Structures are given as C-alpha cells and as structure tokens.
C-alpha cells in the first residue's frame, strides 16, 4: 500500500493528466449538450498539453539562455562549458505552443459548427436534434 502511494505521489503529474483526460472523455461521451461536449474535447487536448509541459520541468533547472557565453558570431558558446543539467529542456514547451494553436483552431471550428447546427435546429441538445432529424 505504501509503495503504491509512493509511486502515485512521485509521478503525480501523470496522474493529473490522466484524470483530466478522463474528465474530458467523460464529458464527450456522457453530456448531451453540444457545447459541453466541445468543452470536454478541449479539456482532453489541454490534458495532453499539460503532460508535455510537465515532462519538460526540471527541479533546480533554469531557462535555457546563456548569459555570458556569447562569442561574436554566436558560436562562442561552444568554447564556454555548458552544463546541460542546469538547464530545462525547452523543446516540449515549444512543441506545445504549436499544439495550443492546433487546439484553439479545433475549438474554433467546433464552435462554428455548433452555431450552424443551432441555426438549423434551434437547439444544442443532441437528443432533440436527432429527434428532429428522425422526423424528417
């Protein structure tokens, strides 16, 4: 029991992202309102962004900018000894900028579709929309 608790606490970032992902998935499956589903989808995406950001974190690390290590052509840093341990890996964070943009674009398209659906059916509740389609 103690071991289990320890593994959960030691890797809490993974548990947080999994919990968030499941909340998002639940909303997408169980909710009846289209906007709630779309919000669930966005939570799902954000969980993965948090996952990436959390794997880039390093205790005691600093931002990956060399303060005095610059030569005149930008290659002087090579002669200066760089301790990679001291710096946070910026790549996961940079990747997530792109993923956030993708997420925003998806959310925008989804909401635009929801507006079109609302204009057609005058409701955002999925069961009512399906009932209307079945009547036709």
């Amino acid at each position: 029991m103690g071991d289990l608790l320890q593994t959960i606490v030691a890797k809490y970032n993974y548990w947080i992202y999994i919990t968030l992902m499941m909340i998002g998935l639940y909303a997408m499956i169980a909710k009846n309102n289209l906007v709630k589903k779309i919000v669930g989808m966005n939570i799902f995406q954000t969980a993965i962004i948090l996952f990436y950001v959390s794997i880039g974190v390093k205790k005691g690390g600093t931002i990956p900018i060399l303060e005095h290590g610059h030569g005149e052509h930008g290659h002087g840093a090579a002669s200066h000894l760089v301790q990679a341990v001291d710096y946070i890996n910026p790549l996961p964070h940079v990747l997530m900028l792109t993923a956030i943009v993708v997420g925003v674009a998806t959310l925008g398209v989804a909401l635009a579709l929801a507006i079109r659906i609302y204009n057609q059916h005058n409701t955002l509740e999925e069961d009512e929309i399906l009932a209307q389609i079945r009547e036709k």
Partner: protein
Amino acid sequence: MSQQYAALLVVVPLLSALVISIAGLVNKRLCFPIAVAALGVAAYSCIGLLLRVLNEGVIVYKLGGWDPPMGIAYYVDHLNGLVLAVVSVVAFLNLIASKKSIELEMPDKMGAFYALYVLQVTGLLGIVVTGDAFNLYVLLEITALTGYGMLAMGEDRACLSTLNYLYMGTIGACFYLLGVGYLYIVTGSLNMVDIAHLLPPLYQSKAVLAAFIICLVGVWLKMAFFPLHAWLPNAYTHGPSAASSLIAPLVTKVMVYVMIRLILTVFTPDFAFTMLNISEPIVWLAVIAIVMGAILALAQRDLKKMLTYIIVAEVGYMVGGAWLGNRDGMTGAILHILNDALMTLCAFLVVGNIVYKLKGYAFDDLKGLFRKMPFTMGAFVVGALSIIGVPPTCGFFSKWYLISGAIQAGQYGFMVALIFSSLVNVVLFFRIIEIGFFEPFSDHHGHDHHTEEPMAEAPLTMLVPLFIVAAGLVVVGLYTGDIVNYIIRFAVPKGLI
C-alpha cells in the same frame, strides 16, 4: 530545381492556399486556375521525386540546412515516394473533375472551398513526406481541420456529422500526440530515423510499449478501423461530392501509410511483429472489420453510404495485410493503398456525376441510368469490377498478394474474410448494375418511355478525368508486376520474409 522537389510539394500548395483565398475575394473565377497550377506543380514534383528515388535511393531533404536530429528533415524512400505520387495525382484529377459540381453545389463559397482543398492536399503530402514525428501531428491536424471545413459545406445534416467526425478526429490526433510524447520521454528525439536508432535497447520498456499502442489507436481512429469507424459513413455521405471524392480516397489511405511507417521505420518490424506478439489479435480485428463493413454495406439503401462502408472494409484489408507480418502481406497492403485510392476515387467521381445530373444517389434514383449516362456507368462498372477484384483490374492483384500473405502466415480467417467480402461486393455492385440497367427510368408514369429516354451525360470536364481513372485501374493492374518489382520490393525491409 529537382533538388528542391521535397520542399516544393508542400510549400507551393501552402502558399497558393493563401493566394486563392485572397483571389476568391477579388474574382471567383481566378480560384480554379491557381488551384490547378499549384496542384500541378505538386504532382510534377511528386512524380519527379519518385523517379529520383528509383534512381538514387533514399532522399533526405534538410529544411533550412539543419542536420536531422536537431533540424527537421524530409525523408523520401520508395514507400512514401509511391504514396506521394498517388496522393498528388488523385487530388489533381479530382480537382479537375469536380470543378462543375463545385460551381453547382456552392457557387458563393468557391474561394473558401478551393483554399481548403489545396490546404488539405498540403497536409496530406506533408504527412507523407515528413520524417519528424511531431511535424506529422501538426500536418495531421491541418488535414483534419480542412477536412471538417469542406465536409461541413454539404447538405443539412453535414454539420452534425462533421461535428462527430471532429470529436473522433481530435481524440485520434491527441492519442497520436500522447504516444509521441512517451517516445520523446524515452529517446529524447522526434526524428523518426533517430528514434529507430535509439529504440532497440529500450524495447523492453513499458513506456515504449505504451507509446506504440497509443499511437496505433490514434491512427486507427483516424483511419476508421472497424470498432472506431462510427464517424466515417455519415461524414462522408453528407459532405459535398467534391469534398468527399477528395477525402474518401486519400485520408484513410494516408493514415494506413502512417501506420505502416510506424511499424517499418519508427518501431521496426522486429519490435512490432516479434517482440509484441499482438499481430494475431489485430488480424482478427481486421477480419471483423472486413466482415462487418461488408454486412453494413449490404444494409444500405443509397449508393454513397454503401461506398463509405466499403471503405471501412477496405481499411480492414490494409490493416490486416500490414499486420500479417510477412513480405506478401505487407506488399499487398502497400499495393492496396495505391489501388484503393484509385478505386475509391473512381466510385466517388461516378457519384459526383450522378449527383450533378440527378440531385440524388439513393438506389431508386438510379433506375435506367445506363441509358441516361452510359459513359459514367461504364466507368462505374470498371471501378466495381476492380473493387470486387476481377483480374485485369488492379483490385485483383493486391487481393492476390493479401491472400497469399494470409496463407503464408496461416491466418485462414483473414483469407476467408477477403473472399467473403469479395462475394458481398459482387452482390452490392451487381444490385446497382441491375437497377441501372434493367429497371426502366421512371419519373412519374412507369415504363412507357424507357425506349426513348434521352441521354443526359455529365459535362466533358467531369467525364475525361473519370475515364483517366478508369483506364488507370486497368493500366495499374497490368503493370502490377513492375510496380512491385521496382518500387514496393524496396519499400518492404529485407528482414521481413
């Protein structure tokens, strides 16, 4: 110039999408020529790349001159050279064929539609050409987002079906991204070749296993592999015909390519087939996909929806073939990417022509169609024969490879499923041919005027590309031996027997 082909085929359509959307505001008639020019350049560079790969072997294009593990590189080998050529040619033919139907179905949205169309092709070509796992995710979402935009322009129910597609597509892409994240944790690299070099000592790691499974599930969602297929039929059916005849042949096929790329390059066949020991259940899933796709197709009462369920079954062919784990199965799967793209394009172009003339594609609308549109239906027969798998057409040869792969692997269930689905396809298509050929055209007063039913063919710009595709089905079939010997033989790694 030929050194830059790999960059041109992404950059030219990308920039021209911007130009088209601006031109759409100025003069709508400018959009079509710009799109044709852009996709023409893309198709030219793709074919040029394929020829260069055949002569020189693998081409590495370093974007911005940065070396691969740090910078992003485009890799073109025999596998994606072939897929690139298929994607660009199919997109180009469909663009020309669907000009009239775009003008008819959405005259006021032409600028936006062509911009999305070209952007979609950018995404597809980018997915195929890139050698970077994260880059692939971004291009995947470009493809998906433009696809949602185009499909939502369709009839009444299009928005709701597209929204369902959007949920599933987003989950699929997110799973893929998550898998890439796990790969990044264990290897610290995003370059596919680099990951493949770093992985072998880590094959026992649970994180690598999780990465593989999660990526695979994500890609399956995107390609509508059977239990995850629910979004596909409605989205493709309700979209405008120009959009569905672009998306239906290409998107699922490109996702199958991504799966094969993951198996062959990123994780290597050793890991996927020998270490994991999951080929057997996946082939059984493919068997279920094929059988269910065929049965659900039988239940449909309109042509377009029937074709979408056939796509679900065809995806089962390719996934099953790739997971048989032998050379013949993999050859069949790669060959089927080419063949199925052409067959599906042929079938959906026919639907486009029918919709252009009849405004409907339910079975009842098809009565007497052979008399009314003999050329379109002639091409339909060729496409149908190819989907069934009748020898001179290309569908036969990929099925032959798949079946011989299944026998070698001892997967008789898969073989039976392939034959079963071919028989069901016979029933499906001969039912349509029967309705179109024997039942009289009936507007209001039954059979009295079936002798002098006037011929009303689709315009020539729609017919000529359709004929090229139909002829292509036979030509590809006749040259299957060459395609396998000169291209696919090199695409399948030597370790695979």
